[in-house]
């Protein structure tokens, strides 16, 4: 197990390097001049421009810029934005917001998705099963930002139940955005649970459980559900990382000062350092949670051996 984890960790390094270089290259190598963008309409003197270029290593070849950047990263230096603020500061301030949003989303995803999926899977073809099927299809079809507006309009403006903007009301502020961020995953979890459960109900060992004279609740609750939930639990786990990276739309619509919103703002302002720093962090989380899930999987399923 230890060796497996070590091997996995080792394999994530090239992926992390590759992904961060990809982002770095996109932000710094492609056309578009960050200095010009920063200046906007104000004319900058040649001298000021040159000074800025030097400060941000913009005259080095791309690979050298990247190496310098990674060198900084390894010392905990994510660079600074154009106003001189450390990117790490921004991250430290905004990460908790995004983490809370992702947590709210995962809770909704698990609670609603699992419940719906289990009830549908147990009674395949029932009214509830069809309801879940139709509802999840609709949810998957409506783009997240549209869903955001619908939620704001219905629950915020019309019913006045939840705040629709900002995080001024504590956990309460995270309900709507959390639901919206969770929506797609929630639909998948419901469907995944449903198919997984239905598949497991057909397994031979479920028939054995019935042949053993176990109560129906035990046959389903213990001998079917446990196995069916393995893929679902791992899906949800891996999704935490993905949700954080996916928060850009939700945070923008709900005006939530998290990392996604920061990426959005910095991309529009061409704040390369902030974009690269935060998106690299997203990739890191994504990889990290996938790793966690692979380990979790080994704990849940004894057939998996890591040697």
């Amino acid at each position: 197990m230890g060796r497996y984890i070590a091997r996995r960790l080792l394999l994530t390094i090239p992926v992390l390097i590759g992904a961060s270089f990809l982002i770095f290259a996109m932000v710094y190598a492609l056309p578009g001049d960050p200095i010009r963008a920063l200046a906007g309409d104000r004319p900058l003197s040649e001298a000021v421009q040159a000074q800025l270029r030097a400060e941000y290593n913009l005259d080095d070849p791309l690979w050298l810029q990247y190496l310098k950047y990674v060198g900084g990263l390894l010392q905990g230096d994510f660079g600074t934005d154009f106003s001189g603020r450390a990117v790490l500061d921004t991250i430290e301030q905004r990460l908790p917001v995004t983490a809370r949003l992702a947590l709210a989303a995962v809770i909704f995803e698990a609670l609603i998705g699992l419940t719906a999926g289990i009830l549908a899977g147990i009674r395949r073809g029932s009214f509830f099963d069809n309801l879940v099927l139709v509802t999840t299809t609709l949810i998957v079809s409506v783009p997240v930002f549209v869903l955001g507006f619908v939620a704001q309009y219905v629950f915020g403006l019309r019913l006045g139940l939840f705040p629709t903007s900002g995080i001024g009301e504590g956990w309460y502020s995270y309900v709507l955005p959390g639901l919206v961020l969770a929506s797609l995953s929630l639909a998948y979890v419901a469907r995944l649970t449903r198919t997984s459960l239905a598949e497991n109900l057909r397994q031979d060992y479920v028939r054995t459980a019935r042949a053993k004279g176990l109560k129906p609740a035990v046959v389903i609750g213990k001998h079917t559900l446990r196995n069916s939930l393995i893929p679902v639990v791992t899906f949800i786990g891996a999704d935490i990382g993905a949700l954080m990276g996916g928060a850009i739309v939700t945070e923008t619509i709900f005006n939530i000062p998290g990392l996604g919103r920061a990426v959005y703002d910095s991309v529009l302002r061409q704040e390369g350092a902030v974009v690269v720093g935060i998106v690299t962090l997203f990739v890191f989380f994504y990889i990290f949670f996938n790793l966690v899930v692979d380990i979790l999987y080994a704990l849940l399923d004894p057939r998996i051996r890591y040697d």
Partner: protein
Amino acid sequence: MTERPPTDRATGLATPEHGTDQPRTERAEATLEAEVAGSPAIEEASLWSDAWRSLRRNPFFLVGALLLAVFLVMAAFPQLFTSVDPRSCDLARSAEGPSGSAWFGYDVQGCDYYANVVHGARVSVTIGFLAMLGTLALGIVIGSLAGYHGGWIDSVLARVTDIFYGLPLILGAFILLSVLPERGVLEVALALVVFGWMTSMRLVRSTVVSVKEADYVQAARALGAPTRRILVRHILPNAIAPVLVYSTIYIGTLIAAEATLTFLGIGLQLPEISWGLQINSAQTRLRDAAHLIFFPSIFLSLTVLSFILIGDALRDALDPKLR
């Protein structure tokens, strides 16, 4: 070493195996690497006639097909739906609500909204198909490379795939588009291809691998037929069902992604007529002119829905295991 069987977000289907040790849940993509990928040759005509029979009786498919037909015609011939010029506007009517003479009301500029929404279908559908074709092309090239050669080429390509999986579709495309000087239909489609080819690659790769390892191919090889020719002959019939299912659903995803990017202000630009732009320019008017968000959203969602309905129905019809 046994691996955690990967699951895809689309419908809880297992994804095909692909090397080892990759993170393999993906976000932002209603994709599907259908289970059918690994199943034996789907050559029998009976599969298709069976599928067609079950499709014809599937109400979801019929609804999806009807919707799709409407939106395809709308994209090709918007004049059939409205004779009003979407660009003739009257500021005096800015943001007026729906009425008998203007079903969807007027937008902020005072243009007839129904005409605008109808004309918005074209770019959405165009980008959806363009990006899909690009994705497939890239997926076929990279996937067959990896599947056919195997070995280190496969490993490297698997890592590259991982790298791209690490970046969500919207986020990646968002950054890429932000640095492009021009942002038209082609650029948006390109950005979606660059960050969305991975699933189609795995789909193709797993088909190539399964065909390569199939008994009849091994047998043919033992008889001296060149592998490459056998593969080319057998991959198409094997890949067509999963690719068809995947593409159909994925077009819906791409259309939604384009609208999202445009809505975020980084996709298509004015004076293009698109649903994303319409929603974007109305986003601050949710309180007083909700119809400006409502109508393009409905059209957009119904278009996506039509592809997903058809794709889901196709999958159920083509995958005998789920029948």
